[in-house]
């Protein structure tokens, strides 16, 4: 991860994404350009089918653009192999999935230490870091409970702990409050805001709800495969 481009953590330049080919081809992204600086808290909004999931997959290095450039930490992600992208995810990214995606019949501690296992950390260090991450999301004392024994809000916190246990550069959250009531949702948002402010983790969050987006410092609104509205430009004006 050599050169850094002008302080931007993320740069998208002319990114398009087309699914299928020929007559059945569907263009999900029609040319996207934006930058995200380290330390931002960005909400991504838009109706379903607007391309926000596609752009999240590309930002998360899970998918590559059909054309255009995606530069993350100075790397041209679109030209990396599958394994190279996996290593980027391992070392710099944290994911909070919509459906939590915790391993069933596996304790909170084991779920949280999973990313550390792939980093090859020794057992003692894994446990210490996983406990610390669980403490950070307020789940001290719940280490040995399995997902089935935890409430939805607690499961989401375990998922967040798993995403931040590696101290990622970028945290991608896909509707982190989607399955929660507004009170739990507010708790999760407070947690994400704290991680962003106190730990300097850049956060990108997909959400449908305007009051959740209000926690973010910037909102990207997607419409029909393009960025329809970007509040950073509003703020800059």
């Amino acid at each position, binding site marked *: 991860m050599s050169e850094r481009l002008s302080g931007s953590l993320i740069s998208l330049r002319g990114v398009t994404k087309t699914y299928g080919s020929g007559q059945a081809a569907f263009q999900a992204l029609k040319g996207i350009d934006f930058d995200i600086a380290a330390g931002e808290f960005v909400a991504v909004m838009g109706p379903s089918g607007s391309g926000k999931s596609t752009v999240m997959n590309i930002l998360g290095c899970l998918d590559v653009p059909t054309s255009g450039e995606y530069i993350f930490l100075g790397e041209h992600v679109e030209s990396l192999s599958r394994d190279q992208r996996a*290593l*980027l*995810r*391992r070392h710099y990214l944290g994911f909070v999935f919509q459906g939590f995606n915790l391993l069933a019949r*596996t304790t909170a501690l084991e779920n949280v230490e999973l*990313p550390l*296992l*792939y980093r090859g950390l020794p057992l003692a260090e894994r446990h210490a870091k996983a406990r610390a991450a669980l403490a950070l999301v307020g789940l001290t004392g719940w280490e040995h409970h399995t997902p089935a024994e935890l409430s939805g809000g607690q499961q989401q916190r375990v998922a967040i702990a798993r995403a931040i246990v590696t101290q990622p550069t970028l945290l991608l959250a896909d509707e982190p409050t989607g399955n929660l009531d507004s009170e739990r949702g507010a708790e999760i948002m407070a947690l994400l805001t704290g991680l962003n402010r106190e730990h300097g983790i850049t956060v990108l969050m997909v959400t449908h709800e305007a009051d959740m987006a209000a926690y973010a410092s910037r909102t990207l609104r997607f419409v029909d495969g393009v960025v329809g509205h970007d509040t950073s430009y509003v703020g800059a004006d």
Partner: protein
Amino acid sequence: MIWNALLLALREIRRNLMRASLTVLGIVIGVAAVITMVTLGNGATAQITAQVASLGSNLVIVRPGQRMSPGQAAGWAPAFKEDDITAILEAVPAVRSATGTAQRGSSLSYLAENTYTPVIGTTPSYPEVGNWSLTEGRFFHDGEQRAGRAVCVLGESVRKTLFAGTSPLGEKIRFRGVACEVIGVLAPKGQSAMGQDQDDVVLMPLKAYQRRVAGRRSRQDVGTLMLSVRDGMSTEKVVKEVTELMRERRNLAPNESDNFSVFDTKQIADALSSTTRILTALLGAVAAVSLLVGGIGIMNIMLVSVTERTREIGTRLAIGALESEVLLQFLVEAVALSSFGGLLGIALALIASFGLTSAMNLPFVLDLNIMLLAFIVSASIGVLFGFVPARRAARLDPIEALRHE
């Protein structure tokens, strides 16, 4: 990386202990079957070898007709005569003692009891050559042989049938119009290597047999010659010398093949154990098929497991697992399952073969090599049948996998 994969695999097996145990059942049964079959076969071979050894390691047997091998009938050949025995003793000094036998199945009766048994005419050196001892009475002596007296020695089985509880000595048993006085009883030897009851026999002097029991056409015939070789002398050399002598006595031209056969006990043991070995291999091969079935069972369950855990695999890939790491995880899981099955199978086989050998009165011969082989094979089955599911898991698209319901 291997260590991590093993840790993950063991966690996964622990999470699904019931399913894991059912999955490995095929391997367990396959491994247990193979090892048990081979252990039983080895036991049978060992028993045959021991039985043949009980004949005496220094025994040489001469039979008329060509050597019998599996699937080959003996052609007709002239029988031996009594003077062949004396000729061998004179010409081959390495032979310590020699005897000959002729036999005929006969109905025996004593009072109201009846039995059908081979009556064998032989010479007084029979116990010495055949390694027999007596539990009661005595064997007939040269005088009785020369005089052709109607005296006989009973095998243990015959004694039991005709004289349950009472002593047979001095009693007369009847067969083929002969009233024969019982003068001794042989110590039991049990079944022979060929499965015959060696104790179902009545022995009488050869002279008396030829005169009163043998059929008119075979009056002078002696069926089998048995030679006991002096300690320290080579049986092979005796076989060679006896063969030369008999060719001469039977007037065989150099271009004619032997119309008799001479063999020592080692050869008998080899012939018999080769049959058992073939059977063992056959049974082992049949049992090995069940190992294959067990392997397919593992593949099936691993495929189900990959489908069921698609979201989990997606999560792992998204978190940053490499393709090779996911592949290794599932492969190690399959190998851990199959090796565990192999170990259980070995344990089961030990119990089963111990029980079966003692039930079948066979010696319990433990073959460490076959156990090691069974374990290696079961582990390889894990690699072989775990590979396809593991590759399927590793090649999943993380986005699709995360969406999987």
